[in-house]
C-alpha cells in the first residue's frame, strides 16, 4: 500500500474519488512506522486515537459534511509541542512523564482544520542539537542510510516524512532545526519569519529565535500548513500583525529574479565537494533561465555561529530554569533539601549538551561578563540583521547550501562541540536576522544521500519565497 501522495491536493482527490480513505491512510502510516521502528522517528504513536479520528472523519466526509482544510492530512508533531492530554517530553528525561495540560495554538489550529496527529516525533533534547543524537530516547536514523544521522533537532519529524510515516510533520527551527534535517532527509523544510507563527505551546529553547515550521514533500503543503498555523494569537504577544500568505496565491514564479549566493560556499574547504557541485549546478541552471545570480561575500560569516550560540544559550539558561523538580517533571530521589532537589534533579534530568548550554548561557549573563558576551552578541546580531536586509534589498533571495555536508555518520561529530556548532554556519543567518528561509531537496550525492539548498527571503515575504521554491524544485 502506498501513502506517498506528493501533496495534499493529490491526497484530497484520492479521498474524493474513492481511491483511499482516511482510515486506510492512517493504517498505511502505522504500518510504515512499525516497519521502520529502528529509525526511532517517533517517541510515541497515537495509533488508536488516530484511527478513531480517521473513522469519524471518513464518516463525516461520506455524509457530505463540510470538513477542514487539512481533512485527511496525517501529521507528526515534534515532541516539544504541547498537545493537551498527551505527553510532551522535549526528548528529555526531565519531562519523560510530563503530560500537557493545554494545547499549543498550532495544535488547535491543525485540529480545527481536521488534521490527524499520529504521534510525537523524536528530537534533540530541548531542541539542542544538529544531529538528533542528543535525545534521551536515542538517536534518529536517516532512512536513506541507517548508519547516518537524520539531522536535528527536528530529526524525527524529517525522517517521519522521508520514510512515509505521515504526510507531513511539524518541527521547530531555532538555528536551523527544521531546515537542516529536511536537507539531510530530502524533504522541504520551511522556517517562517520570526513572529509569523505562534510559539504558544512550543517548549522554549531560545525565545528570540524559535519558530515553528512545516516539513513536507511539496512546497504546496508547506504553504498550506503555513496558512493554517500562521497569524496573530492572543497567547503570543511577539507575533506580527501582518496578513498571512494563502496557499491559493501559490503560483510557480516565472519572473526573473536577482539572486545572491554565498561565495564561501563554493570556495571554503569546509564544504563537501558534492554540496559545492550541486550549488554550482543550480547557479548555472538559474543563470541559464535568465536570472541574475551573483556571488557575495558576507563579511560577518565567521561571526554568525558564535553570535547565535551566545544568544541562544543565554536565553536557554533562563528558559530552562523552570525545570527544577518542584512543580512538575523529574525530581531526583536523592534530594534531601530544596537546593539538592534543584541540583540533583537538574543534573540527573538534563543531558550533557543541555547542561553545557545552560552553563555557558548562565556564564554569559553573569555579572562581569554580560557586556562582553551577551550585549556584544546582541550588537553583532544587529549588524548581521542590517547586513542581511541590505543584501535582500539588492537581491530577491540569498542562495546557500542548507548544510556544509550531507548526513554524516552516527556518533561522528559529538566529540568536539565547536565542530558540531560550526555545522550551523549556513542556517543561523536567517535565524539571527529573523527572516524566512526554506530548505529544498536538490538531488542526492553518489551514495544516495540527499542534498539540500536553502533560499533566504525578506521578512514576511514567504509568499514570494514559496512561489519561487515551486519553480526552483522543477529546475
Amino acid at each position, binding site marked *: 500500500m502506498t501513502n506517498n501522495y506528493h501533496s495534499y491536493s493529490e491526497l484530497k482527490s484520492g479521498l474524493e474519488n474513492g481511491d483511499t480513505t482516511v482510515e486506510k491512510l492512517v493504517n498505511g502510516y502505522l504500518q510504515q512506522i512499525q516497519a521502520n521502528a529502528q529509525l526511532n522517528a517517533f517517541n510515541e504513536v497515537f495509533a488508536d486515537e488516530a484511527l478513531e479520528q480517521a473513522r469519524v472523519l471518513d464518516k463525516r466526509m461520506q455524509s457530505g459534511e463540510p470538513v477542514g482544510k487539512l481533512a485527511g492530512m496525517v501529521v507528526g508533531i515534534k515532541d516539544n509541542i504541547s498537545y493537551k492530554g498527551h505527553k510532551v517530553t522535549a526528548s528529555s528525561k526531565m519531562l519523560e512523564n510530563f503530560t500537557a495540560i493545554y494545547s499549543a495554538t498550532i495544535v488547535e489550529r491543525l485540529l480545527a482544520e481536521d488534521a490527524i496527529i499520529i504521534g510525537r516525533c523524536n528530537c534533540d533534547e530541548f531542541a539542542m542539537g544538529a544531529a538528533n543524537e542528543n535525545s534521551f530516547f536515542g538517536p534518529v536514523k536517516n532512512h536513506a542510510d541507517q548508519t547516518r544521522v537524520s539531522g536535528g533537532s527536528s530529526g524525527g519529524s524529517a525522517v517521519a516524512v522521508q520514510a512515509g510515516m505521515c504526510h507531513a510533520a511539524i518541527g521547530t527551527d531555532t538555528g536551523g532545526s527544521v531546515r537542516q534535517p529536511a536537507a539531510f532527509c530530502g524533504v522541504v523544510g520551511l522556517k517562517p519569519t520570526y513572529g509569523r507563527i505562534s510559539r504558544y505551546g512550543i517548549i522554549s529553547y531560545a525565545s528570540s529565535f524559535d519558530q515553528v515550521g512545516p516539513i513536507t514533500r511539496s512546497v504546496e503543503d508547506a504553504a498550506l500548513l503555513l496558512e493554517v498555523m500562521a497569524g496573530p494569537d492572543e497567547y503570543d504577544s511577539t507575533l506580527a500583525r501582518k496578513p498571512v500568505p494563502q496557499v491559493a496565491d501559490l503560483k510557480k514564479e516565472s519572473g526573473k529574479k536577482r539572486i545572491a549566493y554565498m561565495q564561501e560556499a563554493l570556495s571554503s574547504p569546509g564544504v563537501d565537494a558534492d554540496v559545492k557541485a550541486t550549488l554550482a549546478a543550480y547557479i548555472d541552471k538559474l543563470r541559464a533561465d535568465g536570472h541574475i545570480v551573483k556571488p557575495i561575500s558576507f563579511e560577518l560569516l565567521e561571526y554568525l555561529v558564535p553570535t547565535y550560540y551566545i544568544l541562544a544559550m543565554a536565553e536557554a539558561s533562563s528558559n530552562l530554569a523552570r525545570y527544577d523538580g518542584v512543580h512538575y517533571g523529574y525530581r531526583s530521589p536523592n534530594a534531601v533539601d530544596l537546593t*539538592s532537589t534543584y541540583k540533583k534533579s537538574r*543534573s540527573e534530568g538534563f543531558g550533557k549538551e543541555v547542561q553545557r548550554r545552560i552553563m555557558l548561557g548562565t556564564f554569559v549573563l553573569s555579572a562581569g561578563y554580560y557586556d562582553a558576551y551577551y550585549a556584544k552578541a546582541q550588537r553583532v546580531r544587529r549588524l548581521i540583521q542590517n547586513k542581511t536586509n541590505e543584501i535582500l534589498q539588492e537581491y530577491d533571495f540569498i542562495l546557500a547550501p542548507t548544510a556544509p555536508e550531507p548526513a554524516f555518520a552516527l556518533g561522528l561529530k559529538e566529540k568536539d562541540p565547536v565542530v558540531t556548532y560550526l555545522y550551523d554556519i549556513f542556517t543561523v543567518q536567517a535565524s539571527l536576522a529573523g527572516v524566512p528561509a526554506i530548505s529544498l531537496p536538490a538531488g542526492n550525492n553518489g551514495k544516495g544521500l540527499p542534498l539540500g539548498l536553502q533560499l533566504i527571503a525578506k521578512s514576511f515575504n514567504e509568499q514570494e519565497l514559496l512561489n519561487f521554491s515551486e519553480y526552483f524544485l522543477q529546475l
Partner: protein
Amino acid sequence: MNIDEQTVDKIAHLARLELAADEKQEMIKDMNKILGFMDKLNEVDTAGVEPLVYMTAEVNNLRDDVIKQDITTEEALKNAPMHDDSHFLVAKVISK
C-alpha cells in the same frame, strides 16, 4: 577567557547543576573551548551599535484585564512529583 574550577563551581551553583569531578574537568575544557570560539566577536567593531533585542517591530501587544480560568487544581497538580490535595510538596530549604 579562561574558565577555572572556581568559576565553574560558581556558575554551576547559579544554574543549580551539580557536576561530578570528571564532569567538571570536561566542562572546564568545553567551556574554555567554546568561549574561546565566542571571543572571536571581539574582532567586530560594534561602537555605537544598539543591542538587537526584539525581533519584530511591533509594540503594545497588551491584553484586556479579563479573567479566564481554565485549569483546575487537579490539572495543576497532575504533573507534580509530589503533592497533597491542594499543594505542591517539596523538601524544605534545610532538611530535618
